[in-house]
């Protein structure tokens, strides 16, 4: 059963990674003068949109979201609304954290917010897909020994990788090399992206090699 799940996880990750690749390549063909550094915000939003769309679609197809108790349209709508709200709140949260880390408050607010959107679509969105708009479940997953399925573990790994990637991405900024990728927020978003892709690869592999040791408490 586990092998099956790991395989489906790996394939879904491959699809997401492919979508990231497409979101970089397709605009390069369609939009003249597109480059990852030059028109960074465009790349950033295209990747965010692609990851968002594909993740939602994949999780819906795999049926990952926890089964809802009620099946009324109103409940589903309110769930959708709450998901959107959480998405937006998470963007705001990331924005605030970035400003606390020293991003300029007013000057490049658009860039900062775009990075927040990217981080949200790479981290919070996956949580929304897997766990639904449920704060308690989020707290449970992100506390120690809180994972209850391999999807939770996978979530922990990808989120941690993404955030560490973005964190490490900030280090080249003070260097005086004057490269185009040192401009705020290019290095951070590239770091986050690389971290995310690493997470997508590492998570199934890690789970595969530790499947004997992994035991999950059921509810």
């Amino acid at each position, binding site marked *: 059963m586990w092998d099956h799940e790991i395989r489906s996880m790996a394939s879904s990750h491959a699809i997401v990674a492919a979508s990231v690749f497409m979101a970089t390549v397709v605009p390069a063909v369609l939009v003249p003068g597109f480059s990852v550094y030059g028109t960074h915000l465009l790349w950033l939003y295209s990747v965010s949109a692609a990851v968002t769309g594909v993740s939602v679609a994949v999780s819906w197809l795999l049926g990952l979201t926890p089964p809802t108790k009620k099946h009324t349209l109103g409940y589903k709508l309110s769930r959708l609304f709450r998901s959107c709200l959480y998405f937006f709140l998470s963007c705001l949260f990331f924005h605030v*954290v970035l*400003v*606390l*880390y*020293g991003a300029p*408050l007013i000057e490049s607010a658009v860039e900062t917010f775009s990075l927040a959107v990217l981080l949200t679509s790479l981290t919070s969105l996956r949580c929304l897909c897997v766990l639904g708009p449920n704060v*308690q*479940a989020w*707290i*449970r997953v992100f*506390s*120690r020994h809180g994972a209850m399925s391999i999807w939770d573990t996978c979530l922990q790994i990808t989120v941690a990788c993404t955030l560490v990637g973005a*964190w490490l991405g*900030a280090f080249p*900024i*003070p*260097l*005086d090399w004057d490269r185009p990728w040192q401009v705020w927020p290019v290095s951070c978003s590239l770091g986050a992206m690389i971290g995310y892709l690493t997470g997508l690869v590492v998570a199934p592999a890690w789970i595969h090699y530790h499947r004997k040791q992994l035991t999950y408490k059921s*509810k």
Partner: protein
Amino acid sequence: MKVRSSVLASFILIFEVIGVALFLRGFFPVPVKSSLSSKSKLSDLPAEPVTGRAPNGSRLPQPLFKRVVIMLVDALREDFVFGPSGRIFMPYTRHVVERGSSHSFVAKARPPTVTMPRIKALTTGSIPGFIDVVMNLNSPALLEDNLIWQAKTAGKRIVFYGDDTWVRLFPKHFMEYDGTTSFFVSDYTEVDNNVTRHLDSTLKRDDWDILILHYLGLDHIGHISGPHSSLIQPKLLEMDDILKKIHGALISKEAEGSLPYLLVLCGDHGMSETGSHGGSSEPEVNTPLVLISPAFRRKVGMMKPGVVEQVDLTATLALGLGLPISQNNVGHVIPDVLEETTLRDQLRFLHLNGHQLSCLLKDSMANYEKDAGFEQFRVAEKAHGNWMKLYLEGNTSEVLTNMGKKVLKQYLEALAAMSSALSKQLGKYDMYSMVAGMILCSVCVCVLKLLLVLLLAMPEALSGAAAVDLPVLPALASLPFYLLCLLLASVRVLVCTSAQSSCYLCSLPGGLTVCLFVCLSVCLSVSVQHNSKGYGQILMKFTGFSPLKSSSSEWSLSELDVLLLAGTIGHTLSLASSSFVEEEHQIWYFLLNTLCLAVFQDVCRKYFREQRRSGDDDEPILPSKASHPSAHPKAEICSEKWLALATPPFTLVCCRLLRSLNQTGVQWAHLPDVGHWLNSSEHKTVLSLLAAFCLVLIYVLVQRRCSWVSKIALALGLLGVYSYRAAVGNVLFPWQHSGQNMSKGTVEARFVYVFVLGILFTGTKDLLRSQIITADAKLKSRGLWEIYSGLVLLVSLLFRAHNLPVLCGCLLIQTLMAQFIWKKLHYDAAQTTIMHYWFGQAFFYFQGNSNNIATIDISVGFIGLESYIEAPAIFLTALSTYAGPLLWACHLVCYLSSDTDRSPVAVGHGCYCLALLRSVPAAAYIVLVTVLRYHLFIWSVFSPKLLYESMHLLLTAGVCLFFNTMEQSHSSS
């Protein structure tokens, strides 16, 4: 021999300080100075060499110029005049450069490209070393032989307008002067108008010989908005107009028959692409040098300006005015200036310059005779004598002219060679001392690390008395000890007897060196013995033979531990990069933020998870709804929980606000910050309100744990601080009008000092009483806190008014963290120490410091003093510079020793961790600097940081000794 771990740590730190001092002695080159203490005189000048005839007296050629106007524009970059935009920026100057009778050069300034060392270089002709700059931060009068002194002695009348650094360097040298302070960087019109307003009347008069103008506006514009700002062009046009005016006035004054004038336009240093200076990048180093005089040949078109050294101007001016060249000058005369004089005079000028350089070479080099330049000079001098003989015999043939030209060429080569040999002398390292210091430091760090290993390996071995068994006696008797002594002695003999060594250690008396060697060998052999023992312990532990295994818990690191470890290691590694050294504050802010977030996560985990576990139903519920038996504790726990949860975000916000208070570093230093905004005169009311609020908050936060006597003293002291700031003119009393009677505030400052001493005295008294009479832990912690509050009061006096929020934030964060985080989350001594250290580092930069010498606030040294007195000034400056780290370290002592539920070893562990945290980067940095000693930025970036590191190490050694006394009393009570 049993030694407590904190005592050991302090001793090792002291050893490391000695090691660093030794290293510094070897690292910073001794400036090239003439051994003669007197200044060169006209009568000392050598005679003109003539072969086969007695010297015919020291005939000096006639001076070239009668009047000299030096127009020095601060931060005038080479491309502002010679670059493609020069035609727009300075049209008249460009015209003169291209068509007029002028010479233009690119003068290379030597780093540090800061105004004062540049002025010194221009007037003395020497190259002020880095250490020279540090030693003369307070800018006393220049005592070295210099051009201005020579001119004054020769009876020249000098007029000066501009930067008051000149007035401080040359007191009583100027016939007339008006100094302008460059204190308010935001002002760029007034400083220049202040100079220009004297110009018209001065130019009309005839009673001066040398006029020096130093314009500061351009530099200020650079600092505000960089070299590409729109303010640059109008400023340069203004400078151009002034040059035109002076030139016109000089032309109109020129009389037939008398000597011509000389107008010099130069910059003291350039301006980097961000508008700052101090480093050694091309735009900072290259300055224009334009010499305008009717004595020169007219130009026919733009030629590429030649490259000269900035110090070459000194020799040229001295010879041009008929003055002796100052003794320590390393520059050589610019030959183009001399080209219109007779061949005899030219040779004579070059001979004078060469003689001065060769004298300096004799004084500064042991084997000067082997120097190529010196030999060339001897040959040229001989040829000069032969030429003179023929010349005086009345020979005027073509052959003679050719021969003279050959001598001239020989002279020029010799001058260039000697000049470069002297400059090279400035960049020489004393490797022996450096390596000795480095080894001492590394050994210290190794011992500390080994001790850490021991601590980890046998926690309960240290828990009782926290003592380490040091096998000093056996080490003294062991074979490795003697072998090491022998080895070191032989190395010393080898190094000191080798031919070309001029090192400091060799000049030390033998006894001292022997002591040093013995200590070093003891350290080494002890560490070797410890090594085997420590690793034996660890080996036992891991192989499971040790009985300790059952008791020791598993080695699992939390996220926080990983962060603390990675941050410490990462910071140490980042010291290898010059940009990271320049922007070190960014690293600390970044790490501190991450630390706060990690702590926040810990807090969340504690409060959310624990509550959930206590609730017995499976359904996850909001923790606030969790049922508790009684109502009263519930409310208390709830409020405590929310306060604990709010502390890390509050700290984050606080740090973000403090960060925008002072922009430091290099890349973003030019950005506007809150500090500048507060300091501008129209926001004085805001600053006053802020300062008053901060002082009240400081009182509220500090007085909690003081006795009532200290409470009153503290309140009065803080009032005194405010009135001091009001007296100095930084803040306002509500009944006071702005701009009213400014004074030095000496009385107010002394009033505060009295209370500081009073509080410190009360604290010490309490401490002593708790130690001797009653073993009262409460009394002791109160005494400690009183000492701490005395320090806070002193710092609040020393900090500038806009920096008071830093102090406030420091106290606020300390209080909140101690109350809700460190105690409640049971962080151990090591974790708490590392957090304190990180906070201390970040606060060091919050108060506006950087790794550049220029940010040290020297005015602190004058608070409460009528005049400059060295010892208190240095002490106060050091205290205010390192206030952040010091306050956090002191808080650590207070916190660790006042916490009664901690094990008694906590203080020792804290001290030990602090020592390790400080000495690892210091030792690593010393090794790095040795490796990078030929790096381009070694003088501008790495050496200031080296000084900061060593000063910090010294300070930490002091704090560790304080720790020691605390621990001693802890164990005795």
